[in-house]
């Protein structure tokens, strides 16, 4: 469902498969185990391997943004196709999350 890499204070998360409400509940816990490390100041979501995403993905990303931004960190997304880009745009994700 995801793989990750930590480099210095940057955490990159590659999401894959289908990101719906059920998957988001699981991912939230697993990603938070990594994000809760106070050294993480930069979080990058790579969504290029996602086969499906609905608005549950928005909640997942904004929720992590709230955590990381509290300690002065930033969040970015990359690899979005047209559909996911539309979802991020309509929900205002790009107002707080950088689009790479």
């Amino acid at each position, binding site marked *: 469902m995801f793989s990750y890499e930590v480099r210095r204070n940057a955490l990159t998360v590659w999401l894959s498969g*289908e990101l*719906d*409400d*059920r998957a*988001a*509940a699981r991912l*939230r816990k697993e990603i938070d185990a990594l994000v809760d490390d106070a050294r993480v100041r930069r979080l990058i979501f790579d969504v290029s391997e996602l086969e*499906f995403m*609905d*608005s*549950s993905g*928005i*909640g*997942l990303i*904004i*929720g992590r943004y709230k955590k990381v931004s509290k300690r002065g960190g930033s969040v970015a997304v990359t690899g979005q196709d047209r*559909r996911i880009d*539309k*979802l991020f745009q*309509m*929900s205002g994700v790009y107002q707080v999350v950088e689009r790479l």
Partner: protein
Amino acid sequence: MKGESNVKIINEMRLDFPAISENEGFARMVVSGFMLPLNPTMEELADVKTAVSEAVTNAIVHGYGGRRGTVRLHGAYTTENLLYIDVIDKGRGIADIESARQPFFTTAEGEERSGMGFTVMESFMDQVEVKSALGEGTTVRLIKRVDQREAALPRRS
């Protein structure tokens, strides 16, 4: 789902399943399979899957809110390539439909719900109709005209 004058329903399906999150992906698969004879583009297929996912998740998370219940999918398509998908629950119902359809509206603040469900349905479908009564449940009707590429790729008869 009554068609006007000459518009006839070609195919119809009904599916009942328990309101558990395992079935969100199942519902998406069923609807993709059901609409395949309409020869949809990948884009149309993904649009409908996304809208169905939002409606089914709403039924499970908000309609039943963790309680046991049944979600019903009722699908149909017509001679005019209009696809109808009804997502029906007998859950708690929506108090104020107009508010619920606004972007960022959510009754589940602490749970990281984006409140974008209806907004997403509306932007990926041609039409979304919502009927709801408190304590009785909610019916969301998703409507989309499919197979806009018929001229380029003739359908097998």
